[in-house]
């Protein structure tokens, strides 16, 4: 039973991550373009990334959805890198999510603290 609870908690966290990570990527691009590995390092440092490899399918999805645009640029240390930047659509999605997230976080915090929702 204890194992099952641990597992549920793990999968709840995994689902939370899955839901927010693309917006974390968009947020990291708010102030300028970055390349894939740079995003991985920043997300890893923030502790929101479960496995680094899954960022690449996610970036592909954001490209497909038109939330980010990309440009290849020469790098001084190796082969060219693909840089990601926010599109107007991406910026709008980020703003909407930031709003939703604040409301959601406050709601959950309130319930977890045992009080009623303010």
């Amino acid at each position, binding site marked *: 039973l204890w194992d099952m609870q641990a597992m549920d908690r793990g999968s709840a966290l995994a689902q939370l991550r899955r839901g927010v990570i693309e917006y974390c990527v968009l947020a990291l691009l708010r102030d300028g373009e970055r390349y*894939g*590995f740079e995003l*991985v390092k920043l997300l*890893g440092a923030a502790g929101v990334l*479960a*496995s*680094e*490899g*899954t960022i*690449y*399918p*996610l970036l*592909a*999805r954001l490209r*497909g959805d038109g939330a980010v645009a990309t440009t290849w640029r020469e790098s001084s240390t*190796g*082969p060219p*890198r693909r840089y990601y930047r926010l599109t107007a659509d991406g910026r709008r999605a980020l703003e909407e999510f930031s709003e939703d997230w604040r409301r959601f976080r406050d709601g959950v915090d309130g319930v977890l603290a045992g009080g009623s929702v303010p």
Partner: protein
Amino acid sequence: MTTATKSDELRTAYVADLRRAARGLPKARREELVAEIAEHLREALPVGADEAETRNALDRLGEPGQIVAEEYRRLDLTPVQGGPVEWIAVGMLLLGGLVIPVLGWVIGAVMLWTSRVWTRREKLVGTLIFPGGLGAMVYLVAFAAAGTAETCSSMSSPGGPTITHCTGGGSTASDVLHIVLAVALLVGPILTAVYLARRIRRPAV
């Protein structure tokens, strides 16, 4: 001269695993994903990275199956998992020709080509090695045995010598050829069946 280090070995093995796990993805995206991961490893690991560093980088990257699973979620594809139909198809390709001559194998081939589990290349392998499955071997061996059996006819005339005339009877060279052919016809379909069966189970998600 450069020698492959343990780090190179681990990296190569990881990328190979990824490529295998990503087999079901559209080709263009599969190649792109593999290139992205290879590039990630180039960035994450310094030249001459040791084994421990490499293992840590690969752990952080996650299981290839996990990455591919995310890709499937993104594309909104369900990884194609084979079921009883695919197992029956493999069974019919291998043994169908023995149960129902010719037609049994044809049924297997139709099931192979209508399934979504296998790629075009796998279907070609399944069809071409060898048409008829094990049935082909049994019939060819039976046919060859009949063809090489010695048939003798004796003519004896009264008072004269008995003349025995024999036809058929394979030379040693053609015997060897028949054995090689029979073994190929036995082993080929079995290996193909294993090849197809292993691909019924796509990456675990």
